[in-house]
């Protein structure tokens, strides 16, 4: 049996997405990214095609983000409503499907208030920091073998680097508002995001060890025989749970929404924001939730990879019939629903309990889990290895 480790990788996993030199294994998926397409066009001196890809990719990303924002606002309102024994939006369009558009128009038309004593520059910039962190994380998001912007060799490190970017927006927004409640919310958010970043990265490291790669596409391909959440005897499951808890905290969503905590801080860091600026914070929060779900699916649930069981050829063939994009959307939607479920059923933690949970519970657990994971990797002790 081949020892499974980053040093001794079976040749089946070693493939590259760069142009011209693609070794594709027998059951490997061919991954084509937008960056690779543009690179190919440039190598062929086809600048028009490269331009189309560049502009099209940019437009598609912005359009997808906006559309996703609308869909999520609707989904959240409906999910919340049905958790709370009510119907939610029902008036605008069929079952209120146009309600998010009405909400958006309302946000557009609202007066844009900047407090007199606020630090104007930072106050205006803060929402864009949140949006920027969100768009940077989209860069490495593998939606399907065909849809990915860039497949960085150090994708996980890049993700870990940019996922903390939103904290700048929250911190600056809270500080520049010149409001004590906003300030408290911002300080809470900063402490929370910086703390939970540690556990989040440790949980991702477990998967990086398993797959022996930092590259998103390779992490997904390594789950061809089974998802990491169940293939590694509980180690993957613990890492998944740590990831989910830490990413809820990173997202500032209930039960970790202390930085907003409307019943404590009257709205937290965005108390003073109104209109479109508030909408940007809102959009960033929603898209970040999708991103956290998508990356949870990528790392632990096989991403766009169909559900495979070892070498059960017939079963796997049936699963392959379902296109990867659908798998991705399904897994991500499930995770998004999970996050909404948390939000509408849990009370909020207190600020010291939040810190205790991270430093006294999650961090030790994820460290031990990392060591156990290393042992699993070195012994090659997987299901369907």
């Amino acid at each position, binding site marked *: 049996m081949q020892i499974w480790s980053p040093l001794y990788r079976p040749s089946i996993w070693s493939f590259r997405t760069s142009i011209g030199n693609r070794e594709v294994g027998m059951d490997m998926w061919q991954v084509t990214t937008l960056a690779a397409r543009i690179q190919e066009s440039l190598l062929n001196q086809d600048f028009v095609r490269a331009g189309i890809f560049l502009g099209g990719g940019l437009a598609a990303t912005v359009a997808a983000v906006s559309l996703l924002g609308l869909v999520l606002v609707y989904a959240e309102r409906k999910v*919340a409503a049905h*958790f*709370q*024994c*009510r119907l939610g939006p029902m008036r605008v369009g069929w079952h209120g499907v146009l309600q998010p558009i009405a909400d958006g128009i309302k946000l557009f038309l609202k007066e844009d208030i900047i407090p007199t004593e606020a630090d104007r520059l930072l106050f205006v910039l803060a929402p864009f920091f949140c949006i920027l962190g969100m768009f940077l994380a989209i860069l490495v998001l593998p939606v399907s073998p065909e849809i990915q912007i860039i497949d960085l060799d150090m994708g996980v490190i890049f993700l870990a680097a940019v996922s903390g970017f939103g904290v700048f927006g929250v911190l600056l927004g809270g500080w520049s508002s010149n409001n*004590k*409640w906003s300030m*408290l919310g911002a300080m*809470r958010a900063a402490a929370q995001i910086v703390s939970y970043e540690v556990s989040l990265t440790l949980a991702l490291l477990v998967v990086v060890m398993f797959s022996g790669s930092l590259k998103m596409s390779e992490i997904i391909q390594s789950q061809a025989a089974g998802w990491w959440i169940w293939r590694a005897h509980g180690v993957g499951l613990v890492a998944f749970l740590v990831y989910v808890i830490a990413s809820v905290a990173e997202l500032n969503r*209930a*039960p970790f*929404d*202390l930085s907003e*905590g*409307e*019943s*404590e*801080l*009257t709205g937290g860091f965005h108390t003073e924001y109104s209109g479109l600026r508030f909408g940007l914070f809102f959009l960033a929060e929603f898209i970040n939730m999708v991103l956290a779900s998508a990356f949870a699916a990528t790392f632990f649930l096989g991403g766009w990879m169909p559900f495979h069981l070892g070498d059960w050829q017939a079963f796997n063939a049936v699963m392959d019939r379902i296109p990867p994009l659908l798998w991705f959307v399904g897994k991500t939607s499930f995770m998004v629903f999970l996050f909404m479920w948390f939000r*509408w*059923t*849990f*009370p*909020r*933690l*207190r*600020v*010291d*309990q939040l810190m205790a949970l991270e430093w006294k519970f999650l961090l030790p657990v994820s460290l031990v889990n990392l060591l156990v994971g290393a042992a699993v990797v070195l012994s090659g002790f997987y299901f369907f290895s």
Partner: protein
Amino acid sequence: MSLEIRTLSEIMNPPQTADSPLSTQEYFVNMGPQHPATHGVLRLVLKMDGETIREVIPVLGYIHRSIEKMAEYLHGRQIVHLTDRMDYLSALANNWAVSRAVETAMGVQTNPRIETIRTLICELQRVQSHQLWWGVLGLDLGALTSFFYGFRDREEITDILEETTGARLTMNYIQPGGLMFDLHPNFVPRVKAFIKYFRPKLDEYETLLSENVILQERLRNVGVLSAEDAIGYGATGPVLRASGIPLDLRKQQPYGVYDQVEFSVPVGTVGDCWDRYWIRIEEMRQSLGIIEQLIDNIPDGKFMEMKPAAKLKLPAGSFYLQIETARGSLGVFLQGTGEDIPHRCHFRSPNFNNLWSVTKTAVGGKIADLVAIVSTLDLVIPDVDR
């Protein structure tokens, strides 16, 4: 209880060094009058060291409507119509307090039917009030869903009471000498249906919120009010009983038909927010039991023992009387001079006294603790200011 007297300027003067190795500074922040967690227009000035509360200074008067002064120009039957605006979640109990005070002063006797109906609807309203409190507690602690569950079930009682009293919130039904009108024919069957409906729902409340580990973490050993302090602050109702003192006027000084029904008074041991939470949940069960015992045994009789147009002449002298509302004991003080309007009318409202315990229990805790404490005190601010 040792008495410590400090002037406001001593409290407001921040010390040079805060309790921290870092060079931090204490600061003041206004919680309210517009704040989602203060349930109205209560203003709490907080002296904070980071997230830790050093001092809580309640500032009252934002919803003062001089109800006591207005009562000095109204006769007994009219005062009743002011009381539903005091503690709007136990409007009927407030009506009853004034009515009993006037009846006691004038020596009016009521019949068993009146007393039974009064007891019944006041217990219904106690359940209704606790339902609202339960929903809002979840809201304060960040679990928004419980709010809708509480209000869904509260709506059932509101509908029942609306049919009989004609109002959904500011109900006026009990007046000196009896009731304003008889029970609606639907009342008895609907109350029975409600009890059948609500008992399983109460268990659902427990699984939804009580058994949640985060809720228990947020409430247990938070805002501990010792029995000594509770008496010192004059706290009553569930707040006092949570601290371990079984004072319930329905047991100690029975009025209505409380001496004819079986119920127990839940008492806490620690005096923390969890005890206050648990006591109210248990009180809902006990109230349902009381309603069950009474609903089939409403005696026949008149619903009014006085002529509606009769002038209520308060005899000369001072009269004080208190009853147990959902929040504690509500006292009514009337000073009569032989005319039909009182010379002085004073309400000893439970919320006013319960509120001040926050100045002791919240100190040293976090903002989130203060929210939990204020929520478990179950304050109705219009009753604090009157």
